[in-house]
Structures are given as structure tokens and as C-alpha cells.
């Protein structure tokens, strides 16, 4: 082992092992190249020192060389300052506060981070060159060790020949204001700004590196007590031991930071293991009180401003003032063993109330003004502040959910009025607090998680356990009023509510007609329509303005088609209606199915213009009619649209009416449930108001809205257990999980527990919106918006079923159904649609052909099922979905609806 190695181990080994749990790698012998360099360097240094050589040992030279990576000049400078002309130990200088001048000091963490500030503050150097560049009065060196100090900052060979005093004496009290003179308040250029970071939180004992295990702060003691409770058998000394261990662990965590630092220092990798890492890992000990490290670090930064030599030495290099030789043997230990610094005393033994106490001459200044002392206009305060005044130490919690509360602001004593200003939470704080409150539902458990974490010594397990325990109790369950919804319903006698789906072939004018309807009913005002029409015109789609009331997505507007179901509400005298405007394109039929599954009745829009009707009958007019019927919609209003294009020809109307009624009756619509209205969706004839066109005077029947009001919604399954198909899930201010949909059966009220299938997750109803107004309860048949709580958004998806947890919907991937075939059925791949749900699956077996009327088995195991036949089939899906007998599903294949039916 080389002497060098020997010294290192001798000096640091014990201390390091004892305090840091830091194990030195034993095998870092000097390589032969290093050895050669070392020998060469030693000789050079000896030559440079000349007669003074007697005062320095070879070992010291080697150590210095090693430390400065064989830089002879630096080593010589260092050795001279350290051994040849040792400076008498400096008394702590009286430090003046920054004279009340506003100094915004921050450390740019993004680029440098703590390690940089601790080790090689290259940007410091830049910073402080900056300072000089801005015309600061030259600071005088009054300490011979300053060179060493400077070097120890960063081994900056390019440090400008600039003299720095370690304990800075302020010859010009206003120099800081000079620095900031050219800047308006709050508008400091980025390059002069730094940002404070919260240093890694360290738990552990109190300040003052005595050789004993660190004392515990109140917080730690509390945590330890907790832990004790949790484990119930740990002896007190064990606890202390553990605390110490944790401190050490934390210190270790710190070391990688040091490594990073070394990477920047180039080839001095090995060296890290000696001085720097020790210095850095010493830090946690010094800064064991959670708030302290930041301050020492702040003060470290401060050194470039008001200057605080001793502290700098201590905070940054773990050395003592006046002996700031970071790598000198025994120094690290000294730092560790040292008396708590005044700073530490300030922090820990003089709690923040010490603000009022007067510092003596020997009391160093540890804080600095933080945006303080200047008024808003950037004018420095006229009254110079007493430099010996203590700074105000304040702790501030960011907000309830914030994990760190160590934002400590130190600022000098100031006039009461100014202090009062800052005694209150800042406007930002108010906003933050409000935000935190707003999301308290979610943040609640998190806060709970954050809290125990702060209690340093509590074990992770205990934390987890306590968090688990807290989760339930933290966010209170929404209060249920335990209403008897049915009797409430009787009492309130609300307006009838009904929803209808608007279906029809592509470009039959469904959306435009509904836009017109909403305009005529004054749900949408003329201004909005004008605006939309103007927009439509600029896009070259003049006639689409009305449709854009419902078609809101940019894709829909640019293409002039409806792609997804649009819902709007309007009320007539007796009924609250929900419009479900369905897309006409065959490709979006799954959306149309989703809409139809929510509807009580349907408006089938037919384009009466020449050829359009005929092509529609082959296309979506037919498919939609079949679909809505098999979805359980029995009432259909046929709006024969665009009759104005055929001059309100009654002949055309009758022709279409005859054909359609024939077709609809084959599709199992009863004649009494059909109604035919000649309309013009674009102009609004016979929608809300009767047509004023004399050519249309032959029609005397009810208008479309009248027909709608005549329609009786189907009976509601009010007494059955709750079932609601989720139409869509989105995020709102009220709840991150807001679902909309139609209650198919049962009722729901605020505070109810719900089960979401297929995820099987429980949720609670926070609030209910029906017809965009908050209500306490809702019943089957209503389209509602539920704000859920206690559930993660990933568990709720479109097409899920929300149900009563007591009587949940079963999940299955295989189901038997009675299907009406629209096309040939055989074992084949199909898509299964139920409301929003759209799942791939296959017809597995066809168990029997059934008689249409009686349902008795006609033929077992048929090979195929022909159109219009009813069969019992077994369908297998790719994954489990909530299914229940009595539900209506649609089977599609190859873009065609092949069957629809009821689950058995």
C-alpha cells in the first residue's frame, strides 16, 4: 500500500465507516502511470517550494498533488497556504446583512443540482465572474488561504485573477444593489437568475456533528414513537441505532450526486473517494435537521453575494473556517466532530422565533434577503437596515398536498408593515390552497401518504399500513339521503322524459332537421345559427350550418357528416326530450346502435327527393329500421324530408308512405305505432310550426313535435335493480370519473354505492345531473350524468354497466340468445353490439331453429339459419362482458347486421 493510500485510510476510514456507512474501496492503488506522475509531481513541488520544503512532508505533497490531480502550481499554492504560512485561525467575522437590498438568489438546479454547488460549481465561477463584470467593487483578499479556497471550489484553472475574500468585508455596502440596479423588480434576466431547489430531504438527528449518534428532532422522535408502537418491541437504543442508520443511508444516497460531480471534474474519479465525497457525505450530518441543508446550501450560494467564509467552508466542504483544506488529514473528522455551527444553532436551538433576538458581532449571518427590502417599483428602501438584525426564519407549507414544507425563507428584519404583508399567505398560496382543496378528493389519500413519510424514522411498512388505513376514512363518502326514490317520484310528478333517436340514410338531413328543430324551439338562438352558417359558408358548406349545431367535432364538420351520436335536450310543455342524433353512414352504425339503445322512440328521416328515397331504402333506411325495432323501439315517426325539393308533391308523399308502411310492418312495427309527417328540415316546415307554403297546405296532420308529444314512452322498470349502460366517460371539474348514460332500470340517488361491470369496481355517486340540473335522485328512463367517486377512471369505460352492488350484472364471455336472422347465420365471426359495447366474437353453435310465434324448437342443430328465421344460438366473445338475460344485442358481420335478439 502506498503511503498515500495509507494516509487516506488512516485518516478517513474510521470516520467514514462510522458516520456514513461509507465503505471505502480498498483496492484503489495508484496505477503505475499515476505513480510516475506522482513522483514527477512531488519532485516538481519540492523544487517549487525550495527552502520551505522542510515544513512540508512528502506525504502532504503527494496528498495535495493527488487532490489537484498533479497540478503542481495549485498544489504549491495550497501547500504554502496550508503548511508554510498557516494563517492564524480566523475569528468569525461579523457579517453584515445585505443591507436590505433585494437579492434574488437561486441556484439553478436543472443544470447543476446540489452536487454542483457542493463540489465544482463551475457555474458559480461564471456567476461570480459575472458579479465582477457588473462592476462590483473589487473584493479584497484578506486571507492567505483564499487561493486555496478558490481552488477548492472548483479546481478552476481558469479562475480569473480576481481576489476574493473568504470572509468578505463590505467596503461598499450597496454593492448588491449595484448588481441589480439595472433590473426592474421581478424582471431579472434569466441569466442572472438562479432557482432554489429543495435539497434531497434528509432525515436524521440534529445538527452538530458530535461523535455521538445524532440527537433526534421532535419530528423524528414522533416518528420513532410511532414506529415503536407499530413494532411494539424495539428497544430505545435500537431505535436510535436505526435512526442513525437511516441517516447514514441518506448520506449514502447523497454520494452518487457527488459522483456526478466528479464526472464533470474529468479524470479525478478516484479522488472523489477522499475529499469530496466525504465532504458531501458529511453534509447530511451537519444538515440532519430537515430544513437545514437547504439553508446551508442557500448560504453557500450566498457566499458569492454577501460572503460567508466559515459557513461556506463548512457547508460545502465539511471543513472548518480557517482550515478550509478539504483534504487535509483529519479535517473531515474535524468537521464531523465539530461544534454545531452558529447557523445550526440558529436553526435548531433557536427556533424561528429567534427572529427578534439581536445578533452579536460574532453571530454570522446565514440568510439573505429573498426578494426583500425593495418595494414593488424596484426602488431600494430608503432606510438602511440594521445590519446586525436577525433574519426572519419562516417555514411555509406549500399546500396541503405538497410533500415538502421545507421552503424556508430567510429575510431580514423589516418594517412591521412589510412583514405583515408576508405574514399572510401570498396570493399564489391562496390559489394553490384552493386548487388543493378542489382536488382534495384525490389528493386526500396522497396527503396522508406524504405525511408519514416526513416522519423520518417510520418504517416504510408502517407508512404503507397507515396509508392503507387512511384511504377509506380520508375522503368521506358522499352522503346519502336515503330517499325512497319511488315515493319521491310520486310526489314530484315530474315532466315526462323521453328520448328519441333520429335515424335514416346518409344525407337524409337528420342533423340539419334537428338543428332546425332546436332553433325553432328556441333552444339554440339565431345568433349561434348565424355564426355557424357563416363558418359553414367559409368552409364552402353553406347548407350545413344547422347540422353543425349537433355535429361539433372538427372531423364531422370538415366532412359534412355525423360520425357519432350527438345528444341535445329540449322541453315542450309536457315532456323533456333528449335528441339522439345518429350517424347515417354504414361505417358508424355501431354509434347508431349505441344511440338507439337509449331511445324510447325513433324518428326515421327519409329523403323524398328523386332517387334518394329509393337508394335509402336499400341502404340505411332499411338497416336502421330493422335495428331500432330489434333494439326494442316500437314507436316510429317517419319524417319525409326535403319535400320542398319536389314542390310538396302529395303524390310523392303518399308513394313513400305506402312503401314505408309496407316495409315497416314487415319489420314488425305496428301500424298504430307509425306516423308520417311531411317536413322540410332546412326550412322548418311542419317541424314545430305548420308549413306556410301553400303547396303544402294539403297536410293537416300533426307537426313533428306534436307527434313526438303524442308518443308515449315505454314503461319504465322502476322497481328492478339499477342498470345503467355507460354511454361515455369523461373528466369534469366535479369528478374525474363522470359518466353519462341512460338508466335502463331501477333508480339511483346521491351517495349510492354502485358496481361497475365488467371491472367489478365499486364506486359512489357524488352527485347526479339530470337535464343539466343537479338532482338528488334519478329513475329509469332518464338520461343522467353521474359524478362518481372512489373509483379510478381506468375501471370505467364506454359500454360498461353500472349496477346495484347487491344485485350485480353477471359477466360472461359466452351467451345463448334467441336471434332473429337478417342474413344467413352459420358458425362465423361476428361483432356483438349492445349499446356502446362493441365486441368481436363468433357464433359458436346454432342449437335450434325456433318457431317465430311460439318459440318452440322446429329443428335441432341446423346447419345454417336463413333470413327472417328465429334461432337459438350460442355466441362466444373475446372477453368477458356484463350480460344479463333480457338484454338486446345486435350481431353484425362484414358490415351488415346479420341478426338481433334477446339474451336467454
Amino acid at each position, binding site marked *: 500500500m502506498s503511503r498515500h493510500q495509507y494516509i487516506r485510510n488512516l485518516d478517513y476510514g474510521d470516520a467514514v465507516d462510522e458516520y456514513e456507512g461509507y465503505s471505502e474501496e480498498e483496492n484503489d492503488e495508484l496505477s503505475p502511470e499515476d505513480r510516475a506522475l506522482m513522483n514527477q509531481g512531488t519532485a516538481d513541488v519540492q523544487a517549487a517550494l525550495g527552502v520551505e520544503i522542510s515544513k512540508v512532508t512528502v506525504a502532504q505533497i503527494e496528498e495535495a498533488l493527488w487532490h489537484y490531480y498533479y497540478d503542481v502550481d495549485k498544489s504549491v499554492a495550497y501547500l504554502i497556504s496550508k503548511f508554510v504560512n498557516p494563517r492564524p485561525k480566523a475569528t468569525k467575522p461579523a457579517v453584515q446583512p445585505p443591507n436590505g437590498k433585494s437579492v434574488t438568489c437561486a441556484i439553478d438546479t436543472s443544470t447543476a443540482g446540489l452536487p454542483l454547488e457542493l463540489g465544482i460549481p463551475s457555474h458559480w465561477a461564471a456567476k461570480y465572474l459575472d458579479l465582477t463584470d457588473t462592476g462590483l467593487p473589487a473584493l479584497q483578499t484578506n486571507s492567505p488561504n483564499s487561493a486555496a479556497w478558490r481552488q477548492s471550489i472548483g479546481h478552476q484553472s481558469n479562475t480569473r485573477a480576481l481576489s476574493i475574500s473568504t470572509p468578505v468585508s463590505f467596503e461598499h455596502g450597496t454593492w448588491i444593489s449595484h448588481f441589480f440596479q439595472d433590473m426592474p423588480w421581478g424582471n431579472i434576466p434569466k441569466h442572472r437568475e438562479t432557482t432554489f431547489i429543495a435539497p434531497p430531504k434528509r432525515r436524521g438527528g440534529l445538527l452538530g456533528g458530535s461523535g455521538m449518534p445524532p440527537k433526534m428532532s421532535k419530528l423524528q422522535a414522533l416518528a420513532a414513537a410511532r414506529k415503536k408502537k407499530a413494532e411494539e418491541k424495539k428497544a430505545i437504543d435500537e431505535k436510535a441505532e436505526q435512526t442513525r442508520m437511516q441517516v447514514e443511508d441518506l448520506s449514502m444516497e447523497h454520494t452518487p450526486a457527488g459522483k456526478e460531480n466528479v464526472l464533470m471534474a474529468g479524470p479525478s474519479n478516484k479522488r472523489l473517494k477522499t475529499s469530496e465525497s466525504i465532504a458531501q457525505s458529511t453534509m447530511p450530518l451537519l444538515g440532519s435537521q430537515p430544513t437545514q441543508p437547504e439553508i446551508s446550501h442557500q448560504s453557500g450560494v450566498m457566499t458569492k453575494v454577501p460572503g460567508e467564509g466559515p459557513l461556506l467552508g463548512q457547508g460545502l466542504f465539511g471543513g472548518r473556517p480557517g482550515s478550509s483544506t478539504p483534504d487535509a488529514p483529519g479535517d473531515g473528522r474535524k468537521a464531523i466532530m465539530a461544534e454545531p455551527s452558529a447557523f445550526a444553532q440558529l436553526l435548531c436551538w433557536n427556533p424561528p422565533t429567534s427572529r427578534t433576538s439581536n445578533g452579536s458581532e460574532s453571530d454570522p449571518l446565514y440568510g439573505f434577503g429573498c426578494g426583500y427590502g425593495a418595494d414593488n417599483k424596484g426602488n431600494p428602501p430608503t432606510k438602511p437596515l440594521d445590519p446586525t438584525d436577525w433574519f426572519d426564519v419562516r417555514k411555509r407549507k406549500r399546500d396541503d398536498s405538497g410533500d415538502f414544507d421545507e421552503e424556508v425563507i430567510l429575510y431580514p428584519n423589516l418594517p412591521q408593515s412589510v412583514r405583515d404583508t408576508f405574514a399572510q399567505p401570498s396570493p399564489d398560496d391562496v390559489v394553490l390552497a384552493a386548487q388543493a382543496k378542489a382536488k382534495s378528493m384525490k389528493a386526500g389519500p396522497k396527503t396522508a401518504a406524504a405525511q408519514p413519510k416526513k416522519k423520518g424514522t417510520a418504517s416504510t411498512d408502517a407508512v404503507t399500513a397507515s396509508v392503507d388505513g387512511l384511504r377509506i376514512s380520508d375522503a368521506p363518502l358522499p352522503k346519502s339521503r336515503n330517499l325512497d326514490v319511488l315515493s319521491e317520484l310520486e310526489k314530484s310528478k315530474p315532466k315526462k322524459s323521453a328520448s328519441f333517436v333520429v335515424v335514416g340514410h346518409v344525407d337524409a338531413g337528420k342533423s340539419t332537421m334537428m338543428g332546425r328543430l332546436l332553433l325553432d324551439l328556441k333552444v339554440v338562438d339565431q345568433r349561434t345559427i348565424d355564426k355557424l352558417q357563416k363558418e359553414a359558408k367559409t368552409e364552402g358548406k353553406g347548407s350545413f350550418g344547422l347540422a353543425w349545431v349537433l355535429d*361539433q*367535432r*372538427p*372531423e*364531422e364538420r370538415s*366532412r359534412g357528416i355525423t*360520425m*357519432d*351520436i*350527438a*345528444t*341535445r335536450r329540449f322541453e315542450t310543455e309536457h315532456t323533456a326530450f333528449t335528441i339522439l342524433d345518429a350517424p347515417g*353512414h*354504414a*361505417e*358508424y352504425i*355501431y354509434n347508431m346502435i349505441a344511440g338507439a339503445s337509449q331511445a324510447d322512440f325513433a324518428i326515421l328521416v327519409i329523403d323524398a327527393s328523386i332517387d334518394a328515397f329509393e337508394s335509402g331504402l336499400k341502404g340505411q333506411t332499411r338497416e336502421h329500421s330493422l335495428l331500432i325495432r330489434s333494439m326494442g323501439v316500437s314507436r316510429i315517426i317517419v319524417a319525409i324530408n326535403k319535400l320542398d325539393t319536389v314542390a310538396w308533391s302529395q303524390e310523392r308523399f303518399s308513394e313513400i308512405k305506402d312503401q314505408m308502411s309496407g316495409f315497416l310492418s314487415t319489420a314488425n312495427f305496428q301500424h298504430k305505432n307509425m306516423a308520417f309527417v311531411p317536413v322540410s328540415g332546412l326550412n322548418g316546415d311542419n317541424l314545430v310550426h305548420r308549413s306556410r307554403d301553400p303547396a303544402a297546405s294539403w297536410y293537416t296532420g300533426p307537426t313533428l313535435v306534436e307527434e313526438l308529444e303524442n308518443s308515449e314512452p315505454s314503461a319504465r322498470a322502476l322497481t328492478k335493480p339499477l342498470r345503467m349502460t355507460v*354511454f*361515455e*366517460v*369523461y373528466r369534469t371539474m366535479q369528478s374525474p370519473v363522470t359518466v*353519462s348514460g341512460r338508466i335502463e332500470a331501477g333508480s339511483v340517488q346521491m351517495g349510492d354505492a354502485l358496481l361497475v361491470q365488467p371491472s367489478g369496481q365499486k364506486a359512489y355517486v357524488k352527485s347526479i345531473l339530470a337535464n343539466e340540473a343537479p338532482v338528488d335522485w334519478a329513475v329509469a328512463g332518464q338520461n343522467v350524468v353521474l359524478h362518481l367517486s372512489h373509483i379510478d377512471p381506468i375501471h370505467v*369505460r*364506454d359500454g360498461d354497466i353500472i349496477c346495484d352492488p347487491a344485485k350485480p350484472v*353477471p*359477466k*360472461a364471455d*359466452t*351467451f*345463448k340468445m334467441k336471434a332473429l336472422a337478417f342474413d*344467413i347465420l*352459420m*358458425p*362465423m*365471426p361476428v*361483432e356483438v353490439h349492445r349499446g356502446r359495447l*362493441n365486441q*368481436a366474437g*363468433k*357464433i*359458436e*353453435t346454432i*342449437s335450434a331453429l325456433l318457431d317465430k310465434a311460439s318459440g318452440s324448437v322446429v329443428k*335441432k*342443430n341446423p*346447419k*345454417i339459419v*336463413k333470413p327472417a328465421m328465429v334461432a337459438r344460438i*350460442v355466441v362466444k366473445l373475446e372477453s368477458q362482458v356484463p*350480460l*344479463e*338475460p333480457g338484454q338486446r344485442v345486435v350481431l*353484425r358481420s*362484414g*358490415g*351488415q347486421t346479420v341478426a338481433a335478439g334477446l*339474451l*336467454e
Partner: protein
Amino acid sequence: MRFASKKQTIEGIDEDAGVSLLIVEPEDMWHANNLISDGDVVHAPAFRKVTTTTATGSKVVKNVRTNLSIQVKSTFFDPHASELKVSGTVVNENDWVSVGQHHTITLKYDKADIKFTIWKSNGWDSVAIQSLKEALSEDRPEAIAAVVMQEGLANICLITEFRTILKQRIDSPIPKKRSTAKESSGVMSAFYDKTLASLRNNIDFSIPRTLLLASPGFSADDFRAYMQSEAARTGDKGLQKIAREAVVVQSTSGHVHSLNEVLKSTKAKKIVQNAKFATESNLMDQFYDRLRKDDGRAWYGTKPVEKAVAEGAVGRGGGVLFVNNGFFRSMDVATRKRYVGLVDKVKEDGGEVRLLSSDDESGKRLESLGGIAAVLTYPILDLDEDDEEEEVAAGPDEGDMVI
């Protein structure tokens, strides 16, 4: 796949010497899976974990690379990794293993060719020979990448000559339109972003490869536009090329089984040089058409087909027998012989035999029909008459249904 020896020919297979084959590409693993059936003996390179106990009692575990011969008990094919695990008992002793020990050989193509030798337990029957011929065919079209999508759902597939591999399924909920919906477009581009990222992760575009984009509506168009804008934004030439050459096809849904119709579309046909897929898909369509017509010339299920074949109805002039190739893999000798007999009979009668893999879409359709189907040369109407009772009795599926 290639013969290990240049002298080896399909005609000159020596049952005793076995057939030595070289695995030269990942797709060969699939063929190997078809070739190796239970009971066969496979000789292949394997890693064996050997534990030796030293004199002091300490144990040393070594992974020894050795060639092993095993009698196959089961095989497992991982289509995503293109990896075949062959398990069985060792039949040839060597330094590391003794006879009767179990071993699982993992066959995986990894840059270097792998040689393995196979001895068929039942000899090389016609089905085995056909599989071998398919495996040895050299003319391989490049696999096609396909994204079948709809709003919020994307299936990323790789269509090779013999199979369709679903590489990744992306399912992200898209907020539907509400009067307050403004986030929709952002969510869509996030969805496209996710799809694009996994497309590029899952499919190697370094070799020129066609990309098919299929969706109902405009999702596929939008996705392509998204790819183009991404390519322009990032200056990614490769992506630009992929996007430019991507073919957009309309499909009726975003589910994987829509690939069938996608590949039949005229647009896709132009680029899909995949003859096998096309013919199989066409034949299946013919079958479905016949079934639709219910003219007595299309039958499915083992019993009716067996009867039809026995009558010689699946023969010259349009007779086609479809059999799922899985039927020949793990069945007992008797059943295998029965199906091989069916195949041989049809071939003898001049009919066409198609062995479809359940790994591609036509095969999946066949699978849903029970794995075996036939197009007859003349109509027979009562093939299913007398097996009704039997079928009902043998319908165990209904027991485990939830509903």
C-alpha cells in the same frame, strides 16, 4: 427451411435416417411446429443444465450445449416470439443426460441456422409430406403489416404467407362528443401516437414492407395523415416512406377478423401478392356462398364431410376439402390416420385438399365451422339427418355456459 444435405430430396426420404432440416428464418419455426407431432423423435441442439457435485459437496451448475434426441411428448409454439418448445424424453444417452430424462428443446431462429433432424413415428404420410413441401418452398412473399383500426381501437398485425399474427392491440377510450368536448382531437392524436409507436416497435420496417391501413370511416386516413405529419415534423425519412406507401382500405370494423374483407378488397389485392392467402380466402368464400345457398353442396363438421368423402362426392370438378392443420398435430394415431385417410381419398378422387392453419383468418373461419368442411361436386341433402341424436348427446359445451 432447407434440407441440411443437398442430396436429400422429398422423394428420397429415408425413414430410418430421418430428415435433417435447416431453420433459416423465423417463419420456419411455424413450419417446424407443423412438422413435429407427438411421438416423433427430434434431434436438435439443446442446452442442458448440468449440476455436478464436487468432492467438498459444493454444487456447480453449468449450462451445457449439447445435441439431444428426444421423443416428443408435447410441443408449444409461441407465435409472437416465433419460438417452438419441444418437450419429451431423451432417447440417446450422452455425457450429460441419460435415457428417459425429460428435456425441453427450445427451437428459435436467432441469426444462425439451426439444424434439426426428425424421425416421424408414423412415417411420412401425405399430410406430413405436404407440410414439408410447404416448409421447403423458397418463394416467400414478404410479410405485410396491417393496422386494422377504428376510433380508440387498433390491431397491429403481421400477415405472413401462412398466418396472421396479431402483434399488438391498442385500446384507448376516446371521449365521445359532448357539447363541452374540446379535448377530442388531442385524444385522437394521442391514440394515433400510441398506435404509431407500437407499430414501429412491433414491426420491422427496415426491410421494404407494405403497410395496410384499414378502418371504417376515416380513422385509417387520419392515421396515415398523422404518420405523414409526424414524418415531416421529425424529418424521419423512413416513416415518410412508410406513410407514403401505406395503402388505406375501408373495412367494416376495427376488429381483426375484418382483415378478411380487407384482403379481398381490390385495393389490397393489388398489393397482396400472397397467392396462398388469396386462393384460400376465395375457396372459403365459395364455400360460404354455397352454404348460404343451402344447395346441399357445402357441408361442415366431421360426420357429414366424412360421409360425403366416402361417397366420393368430394372429387374431380370442384370438390374441395378444408381441414384445419391442427387436426394432424396432437391427435392420437387412430384419429390422425382417419383424417389422413380422408385427405388421401379426396386426392385420389381428384379433389382439392386445403390444410388451413388456424393462425390465419381463413383458418379461423374454418375453425368456427368445426375445423373441417367440404365443397361437394354434386349436392347431397341429407348428410346431417341421422347424426342428430349423437350431436345432441355430445353437446357438452352447453353445460359450462353462464347464461
